[in-house]
């Protein structure tokens, strides 16, 4: 085995040094440890976000019921077990913020970019391990700041996760616009610093630190996805920072960038005039839309890798996958207006944003079809990671289709801020991305902890989560089409929405079951860190470079020299090989060194050749019948 040859190399690069608990687990500069820190913080934040959603789901399903345990849990926010309307808004806001930024941005991209960029590219660590550490700790501080806002007297920020002014700009507008909102802004500022430090690191590592032979077109699609994600974050988060700076000044220093003539509580114009709240929306969505892809693209990258490995086939259309990522990244910057069709924008501008938005369906469809064609006639191995990846493809399609509806300005005017939107983004961005994250965790758990997760629990986790996710979000489409608006505290107060109470109950029950299924995952995850079965060197027979590192993770990743890369990452089931995979790091003595795309062309499998011949016989027969030959 060539891996043995690589590892038998001299140990001159590896210095044994004792690390203290603090430098190993707390202020670690090892990218693998930092990735685990991101993951576990992300899981904790995810559980908080999930519990919040269950609490407000209870309110929506049984608005008149009194839940004693809610008063125990929330105190004055649920007097007599009935949720306070302001706190309901706070829960919705913080749920959104946590899920979008803390779980699916930092938890997903932070974890897997940190873990995989050096490992899959053949680098000892990130370009700057110190900045990497700072990035995590800024993220940690940011998480603590955000969570602390739940405990202030006036409650957390409650103007929705997009914190539109004037609700967010005027302290008097609602209770949550006080200290809670200030803490929200502080948390986001810290988060932006964290994501900037991380993004700079990811990009320079990808560009500068690839091992010998790892040309850009041999990079695994995960790395391409992380690379584009980092670029998106790098260019869009600063704009949110700009927006936040103006918001902070509006809140605390008397400026009125986002405030124009407003009457509060029916009396008196405020002194702050002359600004425009729509401007905030422009600046926010210039981040907000790329943010959607910052969330989704790492999940798509992980899925590409997991599907190809477990279908034992080269990914269908590697170049198309890269170009579609590139296209999505570019387009994501010029479509933010589709969040603002009803703000009174010029209808011509609306049509421009509409057309650009619908164009995104093209690269997205390329990706969806490539996943399906990779699965087609593959030698599928249904382990939990693979199931979650297929789940992602399912959500990506079913949620993506409604994106085409919502991208239409004419339809969006009806559907805007209804449950249809909630259903759409929870499927395509929420569920799809979290499934990508689960796929990544199940797939790279052996690399992170050197142990295996329990497969059976994984199956239960997948099926329950998959079914309940559809049960939760699919009915919301119909509610939205009927005009049920999002962010309402209690639907029984509105006569027309009373008919949906049964559906609301179904959704809540499904959400509770789905939430419960995550306990299986938590048990599986934390128990197996300590007690799991020891992992093999390459448990999934994968091609990529990270599986050539020793199971016992070491600082510096490879004990000897860093392996050289000889081919692309998706050389599965090559007909000229005995094994059905051909690792990137294995030197090839006989075959000339070529890219996998060319390789598959030069060596089509025999079955295909037969089909082609049958086809031509068929055509020859037709030609003869019609006298064409």
């Amino acid at each position, binding site marked *: 085995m060539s891996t043995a040859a690589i590892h038998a190399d001299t140990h001159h690069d590896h210095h044994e040094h004792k690390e203290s608990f603090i430098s190993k687990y707390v202020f670690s500069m090892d990218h693998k440890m930092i990735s685990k820190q991101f993951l576990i913080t992300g899981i904790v934040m995810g559980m908080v976000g999930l519990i919040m959603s269950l609490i407000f789901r209870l309110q929506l399903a049984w608005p008149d019921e009194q839940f004693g345990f809610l008063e125990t849990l929330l105190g004055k926010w649920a007097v007599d077990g009935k949720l306070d309307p302001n706190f309901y808004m706070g829960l919705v806001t913080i749920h959104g913020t946590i899920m979008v930024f803390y779980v699916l941005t930092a938890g997903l991209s932070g974890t897997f970019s940190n873990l995989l960029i050096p490992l899959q590219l053949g680098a000892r660590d990130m370009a700057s391990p110190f900045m990497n550490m700072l990035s995590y700790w800024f993220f940690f501080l940011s998480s603590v700041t955000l969570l602390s806002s739940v405990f202030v007297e006036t409650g957390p920020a409650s103007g929705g996760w997009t914190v539109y002014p004037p609700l967010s700009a005027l302290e008097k507008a609602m209770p949550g616009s006080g200290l809670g909102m200030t803490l929200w802004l502080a948390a986001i500022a810290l988060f932006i610093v964290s994501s900037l430090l991380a*993004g700079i690191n990811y990009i320079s590592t990808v560009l*500068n630190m690839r091992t010998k032979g790892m*040309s850009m077109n041999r990079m695994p699609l995960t790395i391409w996805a992380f690379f584009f994600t980092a670029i998106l974050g790098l260019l869009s988060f600063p*704009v949110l920072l700009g927006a936040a700076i103006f918001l902070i000044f509006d809140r605390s220093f008397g*400026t009125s960038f986002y405030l124009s003539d407003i009457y509060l509580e029916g009396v008196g114009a405020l002194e702050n005039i002359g600004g425009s709240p729509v401007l905030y929306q422009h600046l926010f969505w210039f981040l907000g839309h790329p943010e959607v892809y910052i969330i989704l693209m790492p999940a798509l990258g992980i899925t590409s890798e997991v599907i190809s490995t477990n279908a034992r086939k080269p990914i269908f259309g590697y170049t198309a996958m890269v170009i579609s990522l590139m296209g999505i990244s570019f387009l994501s910057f010029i479509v933010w207006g589709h969040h603002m069709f009803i703000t009174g924008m010029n209808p011509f501008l609306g049509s421009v944003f509409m057309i650009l938005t619908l164009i995104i369906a093209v690269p997205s469809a390329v990706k969806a079809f490539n996943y399906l064609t990779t699965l087609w006639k593959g030698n599928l191995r249904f382990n939990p990671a693979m199931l979650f990846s297929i789940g992602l493809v399912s959500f990506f399609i079913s949620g993506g289709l409604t994106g085409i509806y919502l991208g239409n300005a004419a339809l969006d005017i009806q559907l805007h801020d209804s449950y249809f939107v909630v259903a759409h983004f929870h499927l395509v961005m929420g569920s799809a991305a979290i499934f990508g994250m689960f796929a990544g965790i199940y797939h790279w758990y052996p690399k992170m902890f050197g142990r295996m997760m329990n497969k059976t629990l994984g199956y239960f986790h997948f099926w329950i989560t998959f079914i309940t996710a559809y049960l939760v979000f699919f009915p919301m489409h119909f509610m939205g089409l009927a005009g049920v608006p999002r962010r309402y505290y209690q639907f029984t107060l509105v006569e027309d929405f009373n008919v949906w109470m049964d559906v609301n109950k179904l959704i809540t029950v499904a959400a509770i079951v789905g939430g419960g299924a995550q306990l299986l995952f938590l048990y599986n995850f934390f128990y197996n860190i300590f007690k799991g079965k020891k992992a093999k060197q390459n448990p999934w027979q994968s091609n990529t470079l990270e599986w050539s590192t020793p199971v016992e993770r070491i600082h510096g990743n490879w004990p000897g020299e860093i392996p*050289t890369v000889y081919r692309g990452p998706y050389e599965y089931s090559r007909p000229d090989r005995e094994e059905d995979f051909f690792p990137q790091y294995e030197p090839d003595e006989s075959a000339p060194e070529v890219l996998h795309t060319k390789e598959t062309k030069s060596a089509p499998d025999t079955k295909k050749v037969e089909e082609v011949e049958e086809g031509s016989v068929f055509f020859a027969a037709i030609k003869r019948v019609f006298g064409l030959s």
Partner: protein
Amino acid sequence: MATEQTAAFEKQPMWAGGRSPFNVSYGKLMMWIFLLSDAFTFSSLLVQYGAQRFSNAESAVTTKWPDPASIFNHFPFMHGVHLPLLFVSVMTFILILSSVTMVLAVEAGHRNSKKEVQTYMLWTILGGVAFLSCQAWEWATFIHEGARLDSNLFGITEQGYKHLESVGFGDHFEWEAGDRTFGPVPFAALFFIVTGFHGFHVFSGVVINVVVYIMTFRGVFERRGHYEMIEKAGLYWHFVDLVWVFVFTFFYLI
């Protein structure tokens, strides 16, 4: 066999891995990437400025964006003299000169000439400090004239008009009696935030330059064998300079 393949890779184009495609260290690359990101921050601030200004251009409520040449017309020790934009031109000139000295420091670094690097870095730091001091004076004067974050004295309010008339600049503004309206409120606020954010960048640059100066002084780069740190600081300094050109154009010239 393996060595042959290794040799083959070295002949391959620079994107083939095993080396930096741009032949730069990761630190310099990171600085470039950071500057790209920072450019977007400044863009968002300037977009805000543009949006506010255009929405105030021809509305019924606010008729006129104040004319910067009539407001920024003070010069130290020249009380009451109308010297439009002279002081800010001096500021700009100082900042550009400091960029020149930075270039000279980088060039001296290429020649590993520690003494010259020190000299030019010192001039650059002085330039930065001078710019910041000028900005402090500019702000102080502006505030003294009545500029506030939450109101705009300049332009068209009666109070502002009377004030300006009393100091002799009434001719530069249009004012109709009975037209009790506010001036474009964000005018002063935008000025403070955007020039303040830029000034904060200059301040950070001065701190970086001082650190680099001390490191040069203590021979850190001499021992390291190269003065790349000067180049990285230089990239940042030139960027801050470039941003000022835009801020200057938007806030003073047009």
